[in-house]
């Protein structure tokens, strides 16, 4: 029996893995991010392609300083030093800008067709120059200057005896995380429920089911398919984990990585473990429900009808997760839902990240979800065995209710 389950699981897994649709599924969630990054990089690269040519009308020392740093400032200092001639050149569009610095005041003149001057960088540079001049004027030491420049350090901490490490996550990050987990779980559940639904519906509609059952058993087919599809989900998570780790390792010093680092501070190993465990176990539970629903269809055309109750069920925690992403997440209704199997997977990880729940409470919720999965697997097998060879013209929901409810 175990060999047959593994054969069915292997067949289900490899057949799907060989299909292009699986690889699209893998790429789809990260495609917008990748495209955004590529476009952003291209725009940045293109925009910095040509440096602006600037005539600098300033005291010699200042002019030399700008000229020596012109590469960092992404500009090219023009040879002109006469203000009137420089302005004439600007109006003829021979140069991109004229920078006039007099008495600690600076003016940047540009024309409509000018290449862009990075005023932010320029302003920072000029402020630094001015500061250095003033420091020299007041005879300040380098350490005094550095001390004056250091900003006030404010550290934000939430008092939490169970897990203070996560407490640094900003409110915005928490909200984003809550929404992200809700959306992610809903997408994963919908996609994988649909995969197993299609798998079973395809076999029922192609009438190969009798051949399969003669060669194995309903039990081997049922468990094998669930394991095979769950294997695809684990593969997807593993690929993301490897890609994510590689990105972190190779891009740790990149400026973009530094800029998003604060947003990732809430993604501790503990949080990731619980979230992934919730996703895997809850998705497996939804796979069971999808397998039961799909065992009722006659052909492929009924698959969307069969999957509707599954999607509707998955929609409840999704909506709760989205609506609780704001401060309303810490209320009794949401907290109760976070312990209910098939609901908790979208809510509990965010409760955890927001410190509305402790690790013990999350473990309890995970345990309840796992028990529900075991019960569902057992209950689902009986229904699958009963329905997989029957073909009825009745409405799927009606059939599902008839299959679930005890006979009168």
């Amino acid at each position, binding site marked *: 029996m175990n060999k*047959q389950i593994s*054969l*069915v699981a292997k067949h289900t897994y490899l*057949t799907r893995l060989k299909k292009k649709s699986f690889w699209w599924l893998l790429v789809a969630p990260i495609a917008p991010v990748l495209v955004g990054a590529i476009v952003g990089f291209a725009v940045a690269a293109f925009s910095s392609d040509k440096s602006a040519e600037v005539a600098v009308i300033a005291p010699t020392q200042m002019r030399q300083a700008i000229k020596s740093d012109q590469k960092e400032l992404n500009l090219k200092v023009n040879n002109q030093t006469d203000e009137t001639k420089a302005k004439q050149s600007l109006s003829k569009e021979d140069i991109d800008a004229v920078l006039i610095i007099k008495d600690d005041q600076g003016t940047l003149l540009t024309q409509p067709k000018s290449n862009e001057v990075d005023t932010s960088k320029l302003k920072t540079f000029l402020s630094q120059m001015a500061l250095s001049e003033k420091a020299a004027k007041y005879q300040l030491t380098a350490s005094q200057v550095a001390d004056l420049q250091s900003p006030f350090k404010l550290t934000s901490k939430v008092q939490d005896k169970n897990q203070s490490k996560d407490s640094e996550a900003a409110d915005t990050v928490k909200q984003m995380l809550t929404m992200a987990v809700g959306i992610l779980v809903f997408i994963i559940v919908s996609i994988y429920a649909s995969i197993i639904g299609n798998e079973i519906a395809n076999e029922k509609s192609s*009438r190969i089911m009798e*051949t*399969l*059952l*003669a060669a194995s058993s309903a039990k081997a087919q049922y468990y094998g398919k669930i394991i095979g599809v769950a294997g695809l989900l684990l593969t997807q998570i593993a690929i993301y984990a490897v890609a994510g780790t590689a990105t972190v390792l190779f891009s740790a010093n990149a400026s973009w990585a530094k800029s998003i680092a604060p947003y990732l501070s809430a993604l501790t190993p503990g949080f990731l473990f619980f979230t992934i465990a919730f996703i895997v176990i809850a998705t497996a539970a939804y796979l069971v429900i999808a397998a039961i629903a799909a065992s009722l269809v006659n052909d492929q055309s009924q698959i969307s009808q069969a999957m509707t109750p599954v999607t509707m069920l998955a929609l409840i925690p999704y909506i709760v997760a989205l609506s609780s992403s704001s401060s309303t997440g810490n209320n009794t209704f949401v907290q109760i839902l976070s312990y209910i199997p098939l609901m908790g997977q979208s809510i509990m990880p965010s409760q955890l990240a927001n410190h509305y729940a402790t690790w013990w409470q999350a473990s309890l919720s995970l345990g309840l979800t796992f028990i529900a999965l075991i019960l569902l697997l057992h209950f689902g097998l009986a229904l699958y065995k009963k329905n997989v060879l029957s073909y009825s013209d009745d409405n799927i929901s009606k059939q599902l209710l008839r299959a679930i409810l005890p006979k009168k």
Partner: protein
Amino acid sequence: MITLSHLNKTFGDKQAVSDLSVTIKPGEVLGLIGQNGAGKTTTFRMILDFIAADSGTVTWDGQPISDDRRRQIGFLPEERGLYQKESIEEQVLYLAELHGMQKEEAKRELAVWMDKLQVVGKAGDLVQTLSKGNAQKVQMILALIFKPKFIILDEPFSGLDPVNAALFMDTIKELKKQGAMIIFSSHNMDNVTEISDHLVMLKEGRTVLQGNVQEIRESFGRTRLYVEAPQFTATDFAAMAGVARVEKAGAGYRLYLENEEAGRAIFTTVTKDGYIPAFSQQPPTLAEIFKTEVMAHE
């Protein structure tokens, strides 16, 4: 030996199979006949444990059929179905492995069977590119590749042209010679007559006929007479004692006799002047018995 003992199955108010008992010994072929909905497929499904019998037993050599042994049953379902987007080889190897066969052995056997059943195409071809007949051959290969000792074939000849039907018949005969126990259903009575040792006829779940094919035919008496006697007309035959009906059949006539004994008097009459080209007195065909039984129980 396979033994079905007092099998019963109802679906709601409908009695699908009623008190069916039958045995199949090694090297025997059992034909299961009956109208659509007579209970043939339900019987097969009970043997394969797709559905549970309400009462009665199915045993193999006196023992209930275990899950492992059930996987050793070769089964061709009535509803043909294959993975359309997989190659012949992919799905034959997968199902052969499920039946407990080694992959390499299955690969070798597949080539042998494709040749034997004259499948047009290569093992790497996708099933969706196959004709209906070739797909049916692949389905037959799935049922037989692992050398089962017990084989269930539900309507194996439906949809086949005469050449391919003959190919399947030869295959069944060969399996029988090798000692396999075979049970099959068919609406083609000529095929049933040709390859069955025994038959069971079901009518609304009840067994209305059972036994050796020739014995069943003989039990209805030799009341069908084909005669070629040029000097006799249809009117002459109709006037003879014991003749119920006369039909023109090719170069001669087919006479339907009221009883078997009437044949002797007719033989004497038509041969009084000596040689006639044909005189063949036979029991009713299985098709005629089938029609008679169906009508008799309605």
